[in-house]
């Protein structure tokens, strides 16, 4: 009986403190650690949601005449529709699928454009040190009590691996995952070791190695990002959502000039694999892989999907076409 009274006292005190907690500490914490949650919370009466990593952002270059994001450029094509964008650098399908779960509960939108960033399927991104804070943020994408969410963060109830552990996994993937070429190009590590452009001190050699590390992988159904897109696809089917997958442009010209045809063929092959897989599942795929030329990539010293205003416009126009097709198909289904 004594223990019971103590337990009840503990619970009551905790409940009282939990009631005070959200206003004073939680909101600030969420803003710092899971801003995408707040972005979702702000969305009201929206038709189309655009989910992406940093590729949506303007580069900020002085020569740009149009400082808008890709999502805003797409919205130009659909004045009758309300668009919203949720972006976070380094974000990927594993995070987007959790955000979509929130829309499942709140049902604010029924059409989603999700970027498919080819690099995000590779080991460098999968085992990035940025993954730990991203995984931590996923704990907030739900309607649990604030103090419970915060406690789960405190107890590291997410994929909480150290940078060293993630880098060890990445290294092992580069060394062990087979590539469809003859040695020494049968794995990323050996491929990078091949002399090209002199030794590692040459910037061209460093960039060539980065291209191999970013795009040197073979996609299959076991890839974690593919599993995330599969989950998204299943979710869309269950909820009756319209999904448009936006395969972003990569700098194939630089990949070709620095590394060669083997790498670009691998990039095309992986992209085609994605197109086939998700078209078969009934989604609209917009393949921008080779749509932006080298001149319109803003980062020249690392492979990224950051484009100037012309590059963003090209992507936006293609996605708008795809979205129009998807919406037309949806309308015709509804009419039938």
């Amino acid at each position, binding site marked *: 009986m004594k223990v019971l009274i103590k337990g009840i*006292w503990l619970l009551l005190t905790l409940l009282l403190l939990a009631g005070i907690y959200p206003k004073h500490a939680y909101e600030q914490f969420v803003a710092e650690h899971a801003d995408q949650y707040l972005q979702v919370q702000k969305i009201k009466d929206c038709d189309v949601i655009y989910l992406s990593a940093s590729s949506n952002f303007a580069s900020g270059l002085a020569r740009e005449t149009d400082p808008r994001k890709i999502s805003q450029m797409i919205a130009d094509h659909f004045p009758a529709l309300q668009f919203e964008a949720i972006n976070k650098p380094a974000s990927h399908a594993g995070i987007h699928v959790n955000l979509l779960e929130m829309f499942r509960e709140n049902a604010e939108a029924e059409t989603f454009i999700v970027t498919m960033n080819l690099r995000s399927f590779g080991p460098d991104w999968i085992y990035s040190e940025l993954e730990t804070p991203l995984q931590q943020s996923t704990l907030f994408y739900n309607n649990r009590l604030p103090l419970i969410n915060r406690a789960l963060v405190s107890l590291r109830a997410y994929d909480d691996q150290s940078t060293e552990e993630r880098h060890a996994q990445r290294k092992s993937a580069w060394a062990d995952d087979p590539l469809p070429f003859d040695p020494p190009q049968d794995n990323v590590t050996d491929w990078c070791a091949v002399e090209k452009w002199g030794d590692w001190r040459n910037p061209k050699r460093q960039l060539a190695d980065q291209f191999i590390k970013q795009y040197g992988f073979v996609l299959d159904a076991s890839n974690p990002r593919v599993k995330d897109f599969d989950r998204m696809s299943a979710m869309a089917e269950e909820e009756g959502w319209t999904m448009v997958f936006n395969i972003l442009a990569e700098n194939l010209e630089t990949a070709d000039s620095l590394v060669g045809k083997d790498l670009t063929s691998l990039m095309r092959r992986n992209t085609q694999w994605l197109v086939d897989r998700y078209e078969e599942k009934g989604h609209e795929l917009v393949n921008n892989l080779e749509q932006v030329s080298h001149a319109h990539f803003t980062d020249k010293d690392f492979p990224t999907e950051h484009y100037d205003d012309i590059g963003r416009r090209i992507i936006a126009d293609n996605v708008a076409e795809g979205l129009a097709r998807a919406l037309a198909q949806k309308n015709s289904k509804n009419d039938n």
Partner: protein
Amino acid sequence: MLFNSLPFLIFLPTVVLLYYLLPHRTRWILLLAASYIFYGYWKVEYLSLILASTTVDYFVARYIHATPSRLHKRMGLAVSLITNLGLLAFFKYSGWFIEDVLDPVVGLTDGQLDSFRKAWDFLLPVGISFYTFQTLGYTIDVYFGKAVPEKNPLKFALFVSYFPQLVAGPIERFSHLHQQLFQRVSFEYANLQQGGRLILYGLFIKMCVADNVSPIVDQIFGHSAEADGIQLAAGMLLFGLQIYSDFHGYSLIAIGTAKLLGVNLMDNFNAPYTSLSIREFWGRWHISLSTWFRDYLFIPLGGSKAGMTKLAINILIVFLVSGLWHGANWTFVVWGAMHGLAYLAERWLFPMRTKSRVGSALKWIWTMVIVFFAWIFFRSESVAHGTDYIMQMLQNTGDGLTIEWDPFLASIVGIFILSDLLFRNRSIHVWLESTSTLIRWSVYALLLFFITGFAGTVQHPFIYFQF
């Protein structure tokens, strides 16, 4: 498995429940299995290391005990020393030795260094410094006839791997821990209460104090060139607070966990920042390690019975080895040397025997200056970094960093510091026991609230895991 993680929150109650449900004779098997799961959860491959250390010391200790030959006993001890210190040397010191010792002396080529880095690019096994010292202590005890070796290899394996103190101590002695592991323990509410209280307070100071201070310390030490003198001094003080609350918190959780299972582990900390000398500091800081070094290194070297020069050399050896034990970097050697030299200075140059208030205050200031300045090297990336940090702190040349100080978190830190000063020589859990039920359980609720709502979110585990 980390103590401050959800898996441990499930693991611990499960083990405790099963422990008291099982008949006495099978409980140790549960503890052994739990200990291997606890360690293997982090990285299964490294279970082989603890197994290797256990196997070698099991056979070596039995051999030393059985053989009448002094030479053979010595050879047995050498095998144990080579195996355990060899494991440590390979995993912990080989990288440092080649890059920071061998390379500057013989001048390795870029290619040689590169291939070495590739070959040695593995993670340091968690807690290797702790369990190798514990098992080494056992063999030395057997060698000197202070312990009779365990006959059952699995029971010995439990002594080496006992999960509450496996990865960061307290480093236990065979004579203290072994018999407790196999004694008949009946369920007692008092054990549950005391253990739970220690775990709760340990989690609070680790998660709310150490982990919240950590980002500020990282910022100041990471950008020390830009920080101003006051910020650098704050960084030094806060690191002292961080490492103390981190390790003290861990030790309390370890002691509390063992207490739930009816085992008393030794205390590891006792308000070290109230020390009035370096000698006293080492009697209050990481007590299980300092007594280990005293018993297994200082005394075998000759202890205090040696002449003055020999004694000074022995003291310096102990502090330098202690520094190196903490990490493979010259910074730890400097840290150890600073403590060693200060210890010698206290002993011979200015033995401060005064008991007046002013005298005590001066002694305290002296001790803290040494301890906190030494922490700068402990935390720095290199000796040069540590030296620059001190110079800049004293000269106040930096422009200043923009540091976000959270007043609420600062007050949590303040509460901890005050309580530590207030409860000098008396644990907070003893104080809690003497208060009324209402206050006690309100404090529990408050601690739980702080742990769940205000724990730091840094991405590194306990600092001492890396040692």
